[in-house]
């Protein structure tokens, strides 16, 4: 036994030696993918190649890696059942999921290949499941944080819309199961702690504990519930909600199906004013706008109403391209990165025929979220475009998706989008410059503003 453990230590030492070397090279290769100007990866991989990153890597603590490797090796060698391939996959998924969940950050999570597919399809405007965009709400109370689900927006033409689900609905149960946070035992732990110092009648305590036990036993983790709502795997999903405002408790039965959203549509509220609705900031939206704007100019339109109500954001690259059609080359956003670093992102420089220079107003509402909020803020800051409507969602965290080797993936929070004036609007949203409620009222207001002759042109 003794010799065995010495041997093990020796092996570990050797592994650490190699792992350390691997790390240096790895970081270099990885960097070269991000920055096109970095040296050729093949030279970097050679032992004699330049290794500028070595210095910055010496602070990496390899002990956690050793510990993880040791446990893995022990399980593979000694576990009572031999570990087969499906088991290895489950272990890999389990470790990533548990590691990311321990951060209690809903944006940072593991996605199985099926969820990755659903996630990527959404970028093409194909929404699976009930067809609602659902946000994770973290509520802090009694000294701990619990996660819940609420409807941010409902995709037009989706099963959710047909059933009557509305933005702001708080989801209470899915198929009769209560939504559970990351740590469903927090309440019980708090209760037992309280019971040590306060006098809680035993009968009452037992009753609460039994109720908690039921809730946890018959509950569903919020991530599982989300995945169910965003997949077509079930025939019918029953959702119980509490409606914001009225407080009404309602139940819906919804049959999941794919809903396709056209990212860009437009119409004319006035013959010389065009209202362009952009629901998603993706490649298709960029292509369609690149064709539409020259057309608007050709038709002699005076003004564009950029309708970003219910707009869900999208990719940074698409946001840059679209911003470039209104304020080319100007700052789109300043990204707040880890370790107090910031990185300004500029709007693309588009060819002159694709740049709109006429009147511009932007419609926003409480479902305008993510990069759509960033776009609205930049048009306000750079082009003095008025934001008309209601306060936006206030979701400016930057999330990065990384695909893993077998098609599963992770998303992680990697920064925060600030306005060009470095304003953080997380959780607060952007205030409308002109606050107006109601769909047609908002459009009327935009038309009214854009119909006024500009101050300087009198």
């Amino acid at each position, binding site marked *: 036994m003794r010799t065995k453990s010495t041997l093990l230590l020796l092996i570990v030492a050797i592994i650490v030696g190699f792992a350390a070397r691997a790390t240096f090279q790895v970081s270099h290769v990885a960097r070269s993918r991000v920055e096109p100007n970095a040296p050729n990866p093949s030279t970097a991989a050679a032992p004699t190649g330049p290794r500028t990153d070595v210095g910055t890597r010496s602070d990496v603590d390899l002990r956690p890696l050793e510990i993880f490797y040791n446990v893995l090796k022990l399980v593979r060698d000694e576990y009572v059942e031999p570990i087969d391939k499906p088991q290895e996959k489950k272990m890999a998924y389990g470790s990533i999921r548990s590691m990311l969940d321990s951060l209690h950050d809903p944006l940072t999570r593991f996605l199985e290949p099926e969820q990755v597919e659903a996630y990527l399809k959404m970028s093409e405007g194909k929404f699976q499941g009930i067809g609602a965009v659902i946000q994770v709400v973290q509520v802090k109370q009694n000294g701990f944080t619990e996660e819940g689900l609420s409807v941010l927006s409902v995709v037009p033409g989706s099963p959710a819309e047909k059933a009557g689900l509305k933005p702001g609905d708080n989801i209470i149960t899915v198929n009769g199961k209560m939504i559970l946070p990351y740590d469903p035992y927090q309440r019980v732990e708090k209760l037992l702690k309280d019971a040590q110092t306060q006098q809680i009648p035993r009968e009452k305590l037992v009753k609460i504990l039994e109720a908690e036990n039921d809730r946890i036993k018959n509950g569903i983790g919020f991530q599982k519930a989300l995945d169910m709502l965003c997949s077509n795997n079930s025939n019918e999903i029953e959702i119980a909600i509490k409606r914001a405002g009225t407080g009404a408790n309602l139940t819906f039965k919804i049959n999941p199906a794919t809903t396709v959203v056209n990212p860009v549509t437009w119409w004319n509220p006035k013959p010389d004013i065009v209202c362009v609705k952009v629901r998603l900031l993706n490649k298709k939206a960029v292509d369609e706008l690149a064709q539409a704007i020259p057309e608007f100019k050709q038709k002699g339109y005076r003004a564009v109403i950029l309708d970003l109500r219910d707009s869900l954001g999208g990719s*940074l690259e698409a946001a840059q391209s679209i911003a470039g059609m209104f304020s080319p080359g100007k700052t789109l956003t300043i990204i707040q990165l880890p370790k107090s670093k910031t990185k300004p992102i500029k709007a693309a420089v588009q060819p002159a025929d694709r740049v709109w220079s006429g009147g511009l107003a932007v419609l926003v509402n409480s479902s305008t979220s993510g990069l759509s909020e960033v776009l609205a803020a930049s048009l306000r800051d750079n082009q003095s475009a008025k934001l008309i409507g209601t306060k936006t969602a206030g979701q400016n965290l930057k999330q990065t998706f990384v695909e893993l080797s077998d098609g599963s993936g992770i998303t992680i929070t990697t920064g925060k989008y600030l306005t060009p004036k470095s304003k953080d609007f997380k959780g607060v949203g952007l205030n409308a410059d002109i606050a107006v409620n109601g769909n047609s009222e908002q459009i009327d207001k935009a038309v009214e503003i854009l119909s006024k002759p500009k101050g300087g042109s009198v």
Partner: protein
Amino acid sequence: MKPNLRRALSFSIIVIIGFAIGFFAQDVGAQLQGLPSQFELMSERSDRGKTEITILQSYYDVMSRLRDTYYGRNIDERQLTYSAIRGMLGALEDPYTRFLDPAAYKQMREENEGNFVGIGAQLDVNKSQQVYIKEPLPDSPAIKAGVKAGDIILKVDDKPVAGLGIEQVVQRIRGTEGTKVKLTLLRGPQKKVVDITIVRRLVEFRMVRSKMLDKKDGIGYIRLLGFNEHSDAQFDRALTDLEKQNMKGLVFDLRQNPGGLLQVAIQIGSRFIDKGPIVIIQERSGRRTSLDVDPSRRNHRQYPLIVLVDQQSASASEIVSGAIQDNNAGTLVGTRTFGKARVQTIHPLLDGSAVAITTAKYLTPKGRDINKVGVQPDVVVEGSETAELGDPATDPQLAKAISLMKEKLGAVTPAASVASH
């Protein structure tokens, strides 16, 4: 050595290749499920062949990503790794293969060693939510310093403990061996306040409770709370003590005993079985090893035996009760046992944490696998929620054991019982 070196090498190669393949990253903007994302990289993505996920590589990739790019609270790589290990082991769906962080492992070691540094007194909470001394242990620093059962603890080292829970009070009383702790106690109906200073010493957990249930018929009772390094010696002392009181039959209580060390189960089991296996260990290769009676533990007479078990008698308790049943060495009374027939090996890790891995199954001497099934008692008697274990007036299982024992003692004369040995 050679294959291991090769393994180490291939590990480093995997790490490098994994990264050279590259990743596909995209930024999306909000706290939503399934976000609109970037398109351009789709072609790159589909060009790439999918490969099976490997545990170490994915752990490494994700950790590196978090370290380099995560925006939020600071990354604690150690805690993240602990979580990763918990998730990895959780995928095996075996509750006994588990990770023990340094605090949990320390506690486990203490429990197995059966020692702690303290004053040697059992605490409880009274109806007024005050922590009091339920019982100072024999030979303990507490009893030598004059602590008495019933003393209410007012202060520890001059700091009031009112409002603190029992665990917090225990924490304040425990400390380093040889140091002093001052207790301010409220004693007796006169409500006298007493200050007692006690030197903290290494104290053995009391794993055994014993008494004569019936002096006339000579029915002894031993309750075993767990299987740690002191259990067998304490058990031996209890038997000697009861024999001095003319014990003719023994009720051995394994109820609510969660188990413990395998070798201690063999020691205790050896006290009741003549010879042969106590338990058979089956490794994953299928190889079976029989762990036999340890003759050095057969230093007492044999008595008619009744063993009390319940659904919380687990692991080592089931080894002992299963062996007794298979050898007809006693009668099992109570309810079906827990059903844990798996052996864990504990491996200490580099930073004071440890991992418990299920490495073998065990079978009873007759080859029964009782995992998830448990040991079925010979006489089934349900327990009572309000039972005070060891008190025949409130404990129906014990009451049944006593009446069965009286039958046994009536049928078997003491001389015959000695002769059978």
